[in-house]
């Protein structure tokens, strides 16, 4: 299982590689709202879900697609940590 730091670095790299604004010299704080800062839009949320599901081999249910799980780097890191822990526990 990956450490929170490693997850955070991967999430930051994903955002930087895929969303032009975050690649353009904008340094995101861990708690910045990705939607409010304008880094991702509603299609970007779908992309983020796709990235998490594929990279961490977890399934995200519709009811988990919430700002408290996905709207900041801190939230995503925590959410991915919980999902992978649950998935490892179940497996």
């Amino acid at each position: 299982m990956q450490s929170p730091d490693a997850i955070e670095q991967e999430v930051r790299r994903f955002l930087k590689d895929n969303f032009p604004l975050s690649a353009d010299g904008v340094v995101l704080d861990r708690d910045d709202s990705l939607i409010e800062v304008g880094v991702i839009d509603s299609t970007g949320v779908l992309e983020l879900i796709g990235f998490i599901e594929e990279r961490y081999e977890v399934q995200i249910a519709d009811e988990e697609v919430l700002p408290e799980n996905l709207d900041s780097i801190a939230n995503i890191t925590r959410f991915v940590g919980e999902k992978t822990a649950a998935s490892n526990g179940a497996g």
Partner: protein
Amino acid sequence: MAPAEPLTAESLRLADPAATVDEIAERLRESVYKDLRRRGAVVGISGGVDSSLCAFLCARAFGPERVLGVLMPEGESASDTLDLSQVAAEAAGIETVLEDITRLLEAAGCYERRDAAIRTVMPEYGPDWRAKIVLPSLLGGSRYSLFTVVAESPEGERREARLTATAYREVVAATNFKQRVRKMLEYHHADRLDYAVVGTPNRLEYDQGFFVKNGDGSADVKPIAHLYKTQVYQLAEEVGVPAVIRERPPTTDTYALEQSQEEFYFSVPFDKLDLCLFALNRGVPAEEAAAAAGLDTEVVERVYEDIERKRRAAAYLHAPPLLLAELERSETPA
């Protein structure tokens, strides 16, 4: 700045619809004859209230003999689309041409590309199935809006699947052929008649980017882009758009399964969204707008956020082609 009068559901109704119609007709004449130097107008008529009102306003401005209605159904249009379009054109007294765009869409691969994208998330989806894309209602909770494809088999069995970002973009890109092919035909008729092309978005659609760039978003003049949907209905009644059109629920008429605009894009009923947009534009606090719209304050806060989000996304749709250097040129004589 908040309006002096408290906000109510009646706040955005026009005080004098007849005067507004006269004013729009006058501005249409000025725009088309003087600014654009064209001799009439082409209107794509869908059988909905917006395009029907535009046809009536153009008939009022230029005379019905200088307006051409273009009816452009395709294989997946709702069964009443063509009939209602003809009802509207006839009531407005304008000439029409019928252009069935199904073969053009087939040639462009519209249906094939869309179906292939849907199959990436729903492998059983076949050529005889019908589908639509829906968004969850904003009234239900604070979840992000996720696009879902809802499909129905020929036997009537319904399936749902969440779209991936790639599938969503592919489906939208494929179905956008419909609006772009229609606009191509509108400009064809405008070119041969020396007419201007009329765009039919209302204020909600224009503000929120509910149009296809270089599709229904393209036009020479947009006579109702400043009118809230509530006002569109008011003017439609004023000019005599038949009740059968005014009473039809707004639809995208883009997908084979019947789909309301609310399901696809707006997530809240248009009359409530209309009032929220009006309130937001006037700086009315969410609490006051909530009372007027009959919604919870939390819901209005989410609607306000959603409006701002869609505005940000719509900036690209509204942007003209960008030039990277200023062009020096002489003044054109008037």
